[in-house]
């Protein structure tokens, strides 16, 4: 079992890294032949960096669009970040200060994550417009995230596992050594689903994460009258 999960994680990580690298290279290499920033567009590169920061950290455009989606979406992402920070403890010895500090918040964040996923999912049923645009994979993605969060919280509150052994297993993976993994069903489900999420990242809508940084309407400065932007394919 330990061997199987070790293989699973290596495979998932390999797919993640290779797939994501391929997409990022593809985005970076595809030219943006015309200047198409959307108003309000900053006029300088530093302005663009600030806009991108607001977009990624605060979801500025989404806030302007729809307060409910923003509330659920932003809460989910912040909670996820805290949960990931908390989980770093399984991969380092000794811990970073931030990781140690994040431990209690990470637990609350787990609940916030579940609640916000519930909100996002409810919208897919309740709001007619969003029901119309939802595909099976949209529902499955939410199901996957809910299952991961629920199984994680389940281990915290219902059926604890031997976290010391889990940590030893994870630290072992980093050294390319396979340590014994506890075989609690909840843990195995949790880990299998996480591996699945990692593996499908580069082939799914999770590509919005790298995509936002390459979005020409957000990452271009409004400097078209000052600078020419001729793409290689458009040269005469």
């Amino acid at each position, binding site marked *: 079992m330990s061997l199987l999960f070790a293989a699973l994680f290596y495979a998932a990580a390999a797919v993640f890294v290779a797939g994501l690298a391929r997409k990022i290279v593809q985005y970076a290499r595809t030219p943006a032949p015309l200047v198409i920033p959307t108003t309000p567009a900053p006029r300088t590169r530093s302005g663009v960096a600030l806009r991108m920061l607001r977009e990624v950290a605060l979801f500025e455009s989404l806030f302007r669009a729809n307060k409910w989606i923003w509330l659920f979406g932003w809460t989910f992402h912040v909670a996820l970040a805290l949960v990931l920070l908390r989980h770093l403890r399984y991969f380092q010895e000794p811990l970073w200060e931030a990781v140690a500090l994040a431990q209690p918040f990470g637990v609350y964040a787990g609940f916030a994550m579940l609640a916000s996923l519930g909100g996002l999912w409810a919208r897919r049923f309740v709001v007619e417009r969003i029901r119309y645009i939802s595909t099976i994979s949209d529902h499955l993605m939410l199901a996957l995230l809910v299952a991961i969060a629920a199984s994680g919280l389940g281990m915290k509150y219902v059926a604890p596992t031997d976290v010391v052994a889990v940590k030893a297993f994870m630290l072992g993976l980093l050294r390319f050594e396979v340590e014994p993994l506890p075989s609690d069903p909840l843990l195995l489900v949790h880990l299998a689903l996480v591996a699945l999420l990692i593996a499908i990242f580069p082939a*799914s809508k999770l590509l*919005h994460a790298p995509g936002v940084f390459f979005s020409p309407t957000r990452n271009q400065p409004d400097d078209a009258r000052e600078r020419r932007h001729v793409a290689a394919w458009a040269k005469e």
Partner: protein
Amino acid sequence: MAAAAQVQAPPLKEYPVIPILQKDAMAGSRPYVAPEKVNEALGFPGKLVEDWHDRAIAKMGELLGKYRSLRVFLDACVHCGACTDKCHYFLGTGDPKNMPVARQELVRKVYRRYFTLAGRLFPKLVGAEDLTEEVLEDWYRYFNQCSECRRCSVYCPYGIDTAEITMAAKEIMDSIGLGQKYTNEILGKVHKVGNNLGLPGPALENTLETLAEEVKEDTGMDVRFPLDEKGAEVLVVTPSADFFAEPHVYSLVGYAKVFHAAGISWTLSSHASEAGNFGLFIGSYEQMRAIAKRVREAALELGVKRIVVGECGHAWRVAYSFWNTLIGPFDFLDPRYPAPQHICELTWDLIRRGAIRFDKEKNDHRIVTFHDSCNVARGAGMGGIPGGQFIIPREIIRAACNHFYDMAPETIHEHTYCCGGGGGLLTDELLELRVKGALPRMEALKAVVDAHGVNFMATICAICKAQFSKVLPYYKFDMSMIGGVHQLVGDAIRLGESR
């Protein structure tokens, strides 16, 4: 016009309400397909080619390699729904395929099927679909129900711009012989004659002479409307509607009066007698560049020092955002002025320097509001300052009029609603779409009409002017409520003592 008479405007509501979905409500809205000769003149296949499926997919692959916007936008959408209530055509029709995300999905589902692993392996799961005849038909219908106004892009957390996807779809359709008649006919005219209306040089000359005579009668002043005058300081490139259509022509008179009052020599060009550039609407870089080139050629030929663009929304986007790239560098122009410059930038500069003055009371019969045109608002700038495209036209109006009221903040500036006729949809067979698409703007207008007695909506776009002239009556407004910013300028500007 029997069909037009049947078009019913939706009722104006006190508060905007997001409509209940009405599936296929606009499935019947479909512009005429371009005739063979029209397509062929542009280098497109005359009619739908035999192997359209393979060629469409190949074209999609080509565009994915040429445009990062398309590549990223097709991957990044998470179906969050932020855009679903942002499109004026959706708000006016309730057709779910007019929700930006649903419109994008028409292309995205094909992209997934042919260009992604998940779509190849599990099409049902991820919403991937083959490019069938039905899908192509949906493309033709619904990408001709997008005015490329980019309002959805303002609100998308990833900045996904449906206009980029609409342009790609139109480019693919043109490449397999499924061009749209109105747009492609206009493209043919501009290549052949130099403007969208197909007005030849002599007709232009006549029109301008008549205008000069009319202004002389009105004011007693010899305001000139020069054409092809070598050595003029400024070349004015303006939408050809300004030469003959109402209310457009009043703005042309306004430009002429500004140049007259400021003592700046200027000229129009018969070679580049069109600011509009429908190459944008069909997403064709080559078409857009070829049309823009006429402006560079005219400027060089006439030896002007500045290029100024008249009141036209998409033309200003192309000029401001694309000209430097397409036909630059403008190193032959006077570096003290932005190249190109908008007529509003020029007028505002003169106002600030005290070079032109107004008798504002001449506009006292007007209570004015301003409609931000989508391409100016979201795809261009003015004055080199953030939000200049919102500030400058309003400041000009305030300088020329005593009564000005803005519409509701969520309907102006970058949140502005399209007039309903942009993107190459300003054609009679799409009248139902155009009337319904104007609904959000009409609701915002009604609010200021009721609250402040607004009786004039100024704008700086030829398409907006033509569209509103047509659809205002459907909403029980007077069609003469719409006009240009330079119409207001022209009516109040001091021309000096008549001799």
